[in-house]
């Protein structure tokens, strides 16, 4: 299969000197379901903005579907569909009007658009609300309408920036099933960013993890998990701050343990080990005999969560959770 996106040595430096994207290279094959993961501010959205012709790159080369980004941005716009992170439907227009307008932006014929709109409304289950103003839609309905607007022209390449953020589990499953069908049956290449690792695990055929503007890992979800090479045991301590140094030393000295890292958020330490299951009893005993009190021990086979923490030192959503309240009350502090 041929590449639909080829990115080489891409750099984006903002006018204030921030290096948002630091010399990244990757490629996405036609028909791929590609996941682009990273903590907030890692460079995901910046990369998407460059690939979708919204932001001028500082240097590097980008080829999309055989078209050079610098020379043929207008050709690229014809084949891409984009759903941005913010839901961008016009609340003053009805769902149908939003879709019609988007079809016109894509230069389709009116009769063609009408047929496609009927099809899409059914698909995203908005038929009964088609002629109501989008202002009155629920969050999930708006998100579905937004997705439909990105699909109006049957794009060859679809960019989805956190398409299910804020959706209820049921709507999320509906969208997942649809995206998989779109990828499998219509051959649409999908480039997805998400904060939900289970979403990436379930949907994506290939992944890249970006952190501080650099790609730190890439491969299929299975490959990435295999690279971890070990099970993970999450250990919570009653007094994490006091005991973590001592506990880390103890755990590192145990046979079979390959790595011990501090884990943000609720757990204290994560222990990586081959055949971790057999080590649990030893861990409990070792810590107990050193008077370190445990509150819980959780065992798991490697997950994308572990992959993510290994490569970025952070949990993908912990930041989000910490950040959300400060954004809400930002002006008052």
């Amino acid at each position, binding site marked *: 299969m041929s590449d639909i996106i080829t990115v080489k040595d891409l750099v984006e430096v903002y006018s204030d000197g921030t290096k948002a994207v630091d010399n990244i290279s990757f490629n996405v094959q036609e028909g791929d379901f590609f996941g682009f993961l990273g903590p907030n501010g890692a460079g995901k959205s910046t990369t998407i903005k460059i690939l979708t012709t919204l932001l001028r790159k500082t240097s590097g080369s980008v080829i999309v579907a055989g078209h050079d980004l610098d020379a043929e941005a207008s050709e690229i716009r014809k084949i891409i569909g*984009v759903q941005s992170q*913010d839901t961008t439907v016009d609340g003053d227009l009805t769902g149908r009007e939003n879709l019609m307008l988007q079809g*016109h932006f894509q230069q389709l014929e009116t009769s063609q658009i009408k047929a496609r709109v009927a099809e899409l409304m059914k698909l995203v289950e908005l038929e009964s609300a088609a002629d109501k103003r989008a202002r009155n839609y629920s969050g999930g309905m708006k998100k579905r309408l937004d997705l439909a607007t990105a699909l109006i022209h049957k794009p060859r390449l679809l960019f989805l920036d956190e398409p299910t953020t804020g959706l209820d589990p049921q709507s999320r499953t509906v969208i997942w099933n649809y995206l998989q069908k779109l990828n499998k049956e219509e051959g649409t290449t999908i480039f997805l960013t998400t904060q939900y690792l289970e979403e990436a695990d379930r949907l994506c055929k290939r992944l890249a993890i970006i952190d501080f503007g650099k790609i730190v890992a890439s491969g299929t979800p299975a490959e990435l998990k295999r690279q971890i090479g070990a099970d993970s045991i999450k250990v919570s301590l009653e007094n994490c701050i006091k005991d973590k140094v001592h506990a880390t030393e103890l755990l590192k000295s145990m046979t079979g343990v390959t790595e011990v890292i501090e884990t943000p958020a609720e757990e204290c330490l994560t222990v990586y080990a081959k055949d971790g299951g057999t080590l649990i009893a030893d861990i409990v005993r070792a810590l107990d005999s050193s008077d370190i009190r445990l509150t819980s021990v959780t065992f798991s086979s490697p997950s994308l969560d572990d992959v993510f923490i290994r490569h970025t030192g952070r949990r993908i959503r912990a930041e989000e959770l910490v950040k959300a309240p400060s954004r809400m009350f930002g002006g008052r502090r």
Partner: protein
Amino acid sequence: MTLFSDTRFIFVRYMRKLVRTPILLFFSLFQPILFLVLFTQLLTRLSNFPGILPPGVSYLEFATAGILLQNAFGSALQSGNSIVADIDSGFLQKMLVTPVSRPAILLGRLSSDAFRVVIQTAIILGLAYALGASVKTGIVGIIGIFFTLAFFGLAWSGISLALGMKTRSAETVFAIGGVLTFPLLFLSPALFPIDFLPTWVKDVSMFNPVSYAVNASRAFMINGYDWATILPAWGVIGLVALITLSATLYQFRKVVS
């Protein structure tokens, strides 16, 4: 042609938004109507003093042209807000990732601004007529007034659009626009005859584009086809439009690229 059809679709979008948010229309019409109905009442006696107003002209008839200008200011101000809203919501970006014609984004907005000024002008003129004012030049003159005000509205939309794209803040657009509106109206013959004004105001008003737009509209209303007033006025408005729309285009290019 793409440019033409895209402009039309974007124009229709803005018109739909306008009629579906009647409160916006109400607010921008409220002030001019208040002036037309109440403020003119305060000064009806002005026509009792000979030599202030042109002979046979009521104050209402005289002030209508000025109030029409005030109205054009108000609706043009909201233009900048709409572009800020589209930038904030991401709708502008959503347009920009499609092959939609770039100039159409601006032309769709400007044509809807111009059309809106014409509609509001028609409402105010209708009300003025109901209150006893008439347009001396008749239907053709009314078209002349529409043209003058739509043209002026475009020039003024240029300021609010450029400000909106530069500052990305609806509040700033409103604040700056609001601060500019009344001084420009007061330092012109919008509400009082030019000979009635103090000399310094008269001198300043020579450099105020609003004076020219008011005089042209007023010519259609009460003097007839006074081309010696109308044509230079269109020239002045054209010059202002050239400057403000160039600024808009410059800011738009920065936003788009």
